[in-house]
Each structure stands twice: as structure tokens, then as C-alpha cells.
């Protein structure tokens, strides 16, 4: 009794939405106030790590081709790596600030994986459009994260990071199994 693929995307959308709300609140109040309670400091890195773990069953049960499977595996690994590194930095086990670069790495690898594993053009179907949109959002998000790693207290980079995550949530909520995009649906994808 597996959930349909679009339902899985919506569940990840909720995770990204909650993550985005936490990051936006952190950007508004500042890292110092956000980190005053330890459970709060651990909250969003834990959510990222958990979403990385949940990506593995998605990879196993929902992928229909090798490149699709590799893309999901790349997301799972980079999300777990970024979440783990952030947990280590918050805990103080990791001291080198270069670990912050795992976050832009996750975005850049994820964005590239979206673009590489989508063989169809933007208006082929809604799924194709969303893959392209998510890919470019990931690449732009990676650059924002890179700025955030260099200037961790910049409100602009922190808010930009939060809005990138919210954009991911929005795009995931837009997903349907088979649906047109702006009136376009290729006959190869099930359109008439």
C-alpha cells in the first residue's frame, strides 16, 4: 500500500515548508536568539537529516530508471551530509567552519541532479517543468548558501536561504502524477 508519487512529493513539501518557516524565523530574530534553546538550534538540521533518511525509501520504491535512482540517491546523501554537518556544528563537535559548505554542496548537487535526470523540455508536462524549476532553484539556492557560509550573520543571505527552501515547498506542492503545465501536455506524457 504505497502512497502515490505525487502524495510523496506533497509530504516532502510539508517538510520543506516547516523548514522554511523555521529558517525565516531564524533570519528575522538572528542566530544568537534562535540558538538560545538547544532544542531549537537542533531543530532544522534534524529535519534536514530526517528528510535525507526518508529519501532512501523513495529511491528504492519510486524510481523507474537508473538515472532517476541516482538522482534520488544524490539528494538523500547530500541532505544527510548537510544535516549531519549542521548538527555537528551546533553541538560543537565540528569546529571547522568549512563544514558550512556542505549546505551549498547539497543545493548545487541537488539542483544539478534535477536538471541532468530530466530529459524532456520545460513544457513536456508539469513534472518536467517542475524538475527544471527545482533544478534552477537549487542552483540559485546553492549560490545563496555559499554567500551565507561566507557571511553567516547577513540577514539578506539568511532570508534568501529561507525563501529558497519555501520555493522548494511550493514547487513540490504543485506536483501531480500526470498533468499539463500552462495548457501543455505532450502526447508522449499522456496528453491528446
Amino acid at each position, binding site marked *: *500500500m504505497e*502512497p*502515490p508519487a505525487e*502524495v510523496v512529493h*506533497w*509530504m516532502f*513539501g*510539508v517538510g520543506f*515548508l*516547516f523548514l522554511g*518557516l*523555521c529558517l*525565516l*524565523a531564524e533570519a*528575522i*530574530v538572528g542566530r*544568537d*536568539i*534562535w540558538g*538560545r*534553546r538547544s532544542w*531549537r538550534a537542533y*531543530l532544522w538540521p534534524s529535519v534536514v537529516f530526517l528528510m535525507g533518511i526518508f529519501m532512501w525509501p523513495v529511491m528504492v520504491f519510486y524510481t523507474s530508471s537508473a538515472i532517476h535512482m541516482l538522482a534520488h540517491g544524490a539528494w538523500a546523501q547530500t541532505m544527510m551530509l548537510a544535516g549531519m554537518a549542521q548538527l555537528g556544528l551546533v553541538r560543537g563537535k565540528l569546529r571547522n567552519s568549512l563544514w558550512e559548505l556542505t549546505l551549498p554542496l547539497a543545493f548545487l548537487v541537488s539542483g544539478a541532479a534535477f536538471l541532468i535526470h530530466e530529459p524532456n523540455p520545460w513544457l513536456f508536462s508539469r513534472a518536467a517543468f517542475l524538475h527544471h524549476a527545482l533544478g534552477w532553484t537549487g542552483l540559485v539556492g546553492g549560490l545563496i548558501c555559499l554567500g551565507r557560509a561566507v557571511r553567516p550573520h547577513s540577514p539578506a543571505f539568511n532570508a534568501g536561504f529561507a525563501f529558497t527552501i519555501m520555493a522548494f515547498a511550493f514547487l513540490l*506542492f504543485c506536483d501531480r502524477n500526470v498533468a499539463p503545465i500552462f495548457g501543455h501536455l505532450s502526447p508522449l506524457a499522456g496528453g491528446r
Partner: protein
Amino acid sequence: MNAELVRQRAEARTRHSWRHTAVSALGPLTALAGLIWAIVQPYRITLFDPDRHGFWYLAIQPPLLVILAAAVFHFWVVPSLLADLEEAEERSR
């Protein structure tokens, strides 16, 4: 003189900063977005027509999930964050 000081401090406490207002508004605004989504696409609320849908489509209804995420954030994360923010702002005055 003392009464004046008490009045000024009480005013300062009730006058919230923009950060306080912004953090307080995040959850309700997100929930409002979910509510508007439910009104614009009522067919997403599968509970209105439970006989036509299976378990997963009844359990996972995106507009309601958005409202749920907003509620969890507003009632779980925000109260302690506002308390810490007020404390920090009080100290910096």
C-alpha cells in the same frame, strides 16, 4: 516620578518590535495561504467526498497540511522564540 517610570516601562513592554510582529505573523499568514488554497481548489479537500478517494488521498490533503505545518510552527516554535526575543530586547534597552 516612580509612576511615570512604571508607565514608560509598561508602554515599552506593550510596544512590540517589527521582529516580534513578523515572527508572530509567520504562522497565521501561512495558515491563511492554506485556507485560500482550499477555497480556490476545494477538490483538494478530499474529505468533502470521501467515497471517491483511497486512504492516501484522504490522509494527505495539501491545503490542510499547510495549515497543520503553520499551526505546529506557531504553537510549538514561536512562543519560546518570542519569549527569548523579548528578553533580549528588554536587556538591550
